[in-house]
């Protein structure tokens, strides 16, 4: 019986054109659009791959020459482009964002940056690794200058392994935030499925719900199979959208597929339960509810940078709390932290918050749905 409920529910959700449009087609169209737009931009701004930096040496470090030669090697290998070694020139360029950062060689090695972004994160982790491995590196530089290349490579592969998935690939898309917001949208549009499910289980909403309510099938059994069906559709949609972006549009998201899928799963759960939440709380017709779901989901995505890439940073600077609870921001955080930087703690925090939101939405929905008789039909 469960199988019957599940399988027909699945068909009910999949065959509906409106639902599938919003859930699957729309994200793919938007993703294609992003992909095409951004690939043009990327071509125009060639050279973005080797990041422009400055190396400024105040001469106080006894190994400064060795350190410099390390960065020179990096430049030779095309990872960075050392624009200047002059302090004042470098500082001006940094303010104008002409360079990503200044590496200061004094008694310590430090990084000066103007804004936080993907490149800065990469730079930071390279320097951290460098500082940690300093002794070994210095030794190599002094005694086997010919081995320098290997050291640089080793350093990179190490950072690749622990810190920066993107570095080794060397072509992490600078517009990845848009794609992460797109994934967030894909997940959250699961809300339309959740909302539809609430319509068809409450006897005061639709006629098919009347049929289901007068049957001996327990309401919570129906709610459970409905949810499972919505989850299935959403997971398939997510996987399709993800690999479409990844393989067809050729956008690099790293290879941590397990965590990516987990983020998708939790994101979908939040999306669907959000739909349930709106479905049980809002007293209005189906079209109005659909409007509310779409509008709020798009607004959440807007706040997390779907339309304006810097939106999330702006929010972070002014009302950071919104980024901590906006499901769209949390979902893109989760992706960012596994695809770009290795921010396991950010990832975990995002996932846990999403789960908490799911539980809140879910509990309210179940309490409302358990109501058995209605005041009017």
């Amino acid at each position: 019986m469960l199988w019957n409920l599940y399988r027909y529910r699945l068909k009910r959700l999949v065959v509906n054109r409106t639902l599938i449009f919003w859930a699957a087609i729309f994200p793919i169209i938007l993703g294609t659009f992003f992909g095409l737009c951004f690939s043009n931009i990327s071509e125009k701004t060639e050279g973005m791959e080797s990041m422009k930096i400055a190396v400024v040496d105040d001469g106080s470090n006894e190994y400064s020459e060795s350190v410099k030669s390390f960065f020179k090697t990096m430049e030779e290998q095309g990872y960075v482009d050392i624009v200047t070694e002059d302090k004042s020139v470098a500082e001006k360029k940094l303010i104008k964002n002409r360079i990503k950062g200044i590496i200061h060689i004094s008694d310590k090695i430090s990084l000066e940056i103007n804004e936080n972004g993907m490149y800065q994160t990469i730079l930071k982790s390279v320097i951290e690794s460098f500082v940690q491995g300093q002794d070994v590196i210095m030794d190599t530089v002094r005694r086997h200058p010919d081995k320098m290349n290997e050291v640089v490579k080793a350093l990179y592969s190490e950072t690749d392994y622990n810190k920066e998935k993107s570095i080794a690939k060397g072509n992490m898309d600078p517009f990845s935030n848009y794609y992460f917001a797109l994934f967030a949208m894909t997940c959250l549009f699961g809300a339309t499925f959740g909302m539809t499910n609430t319509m068809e289980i409450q006897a005061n909403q639709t006629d098919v719900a009347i049929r289901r309510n007068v049957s001996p099938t327990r309401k919570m059994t129906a709610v459970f199979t409905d949810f499972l069906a919505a989850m299935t559709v959403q997971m398939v949609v997510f996987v399709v959208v993800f690999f479409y972006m990844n393989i067809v549009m050729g956008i690099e998201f790293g290879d941590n597929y397990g965590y990516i899928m987990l983020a998708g799963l939790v994101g979908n759960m939040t999306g669907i339960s959000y739909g349930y939440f709106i479905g049980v709380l809002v007293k209005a017709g189906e079209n109005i509810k659909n409007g509310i779901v779409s509008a709020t989901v798009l607004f959440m995505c807007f706040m997390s940078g779907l339309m304006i890439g810097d939106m999330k940073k702006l929010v972070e600077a002014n009302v950071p709390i919104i980024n901590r609870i906006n499901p769209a921001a949390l979902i893109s955080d989760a992706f960012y932290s596994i695809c770009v930087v290795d921010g396991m703690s950010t990832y975990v925090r995002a996932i846990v918050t999403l789960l908490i939101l799911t539980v809140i939405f879910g509990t309210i929905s179940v309490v409302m749905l358990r109501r058995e008789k209605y005041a009017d039909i």
Partner: protein
Amino acid sequence: MNNTSVIKVDNLVKRYKELVALDHFHLDIREGEVFGLLGPNGSGKSTTISCILGLLKYDKGTIEVFGEEMKPSSYELKRKIGVVPQNVAVFDELTVYENIDYFCGLYINDKNTRKQYVEDALKFVELEDFRKFYPKKLSGGLLRRLNIACGIAHKPKLIFMDEPTVAVDPQSRNKILEGIQELNRAGATIVYTSHYMEEVEKICTRIAIMDTGKNLAIGTTEELKAMIKTGETIQVEILDFDEKILEGILEGIRKLSNVYKAEYDDRHLIVQYTKGQRNLVTLLDFLKENEVAFGRVYSELPTLNDVFLEITGKELRDKN
């Protein structure tokens, strides 16, 4: 028909805010009946059914189904009940077969039994050739039949049908009505609502006439007709007569035995009788005596509409 009570409703009061939809409503339906709930739009037929099914909260009263209180958790009770809602309730995304299978599956777990039941239902509503069709592709009449199939496929012992023939052509309608009688012969008790009196008269063993949430009269068609003063109505087409003697003639007719009302309208004499026999002969003799030339003569027995008219003071529905 026997005397086991299947549905018992006492003193049911249901308000939608200020509007009193059911006003101390009572009902007693026995096993094996085809029970008709007859009332105009908004009289509370659907509300009654929703209350009995445990979907609606009500303000006062008791409802028993198969001798038990009907609760949303009365799963065993629900298993015995089938519902054909007033509005077509099917999934547009599922085919005819899948819809029936889905709703039947809410009641019947066993796959083979269900398969058989779905086939039976398809056959019953004659939709075998349409099994792969999606509801959007069905005509109004076929859709109604699908709606019925979804409600009865699990072979319930008690079936509620809320205006199942609305917007159905006469041929399909007759099919549906015959089907209902067939279900009844197979042992199901049926509660049938309608505002088409002909239907109710044709298939129902007992009828409750309701208006503004009240049960005004209950009984078989004959019992209901016997409750009212009106008997047959005779219409006589007048070919030629002197308008001046009209009042005299009408007066004379009113004095004939059993006449309850006599009128003249558009060259027709309309005479209503309370009861009795040989009324026609007496009337025609009277007209001959008074040298009134007449043409065609019609005699009509009272309908439920007359019953309704007399009880409520209004027509059951617009003539259509």
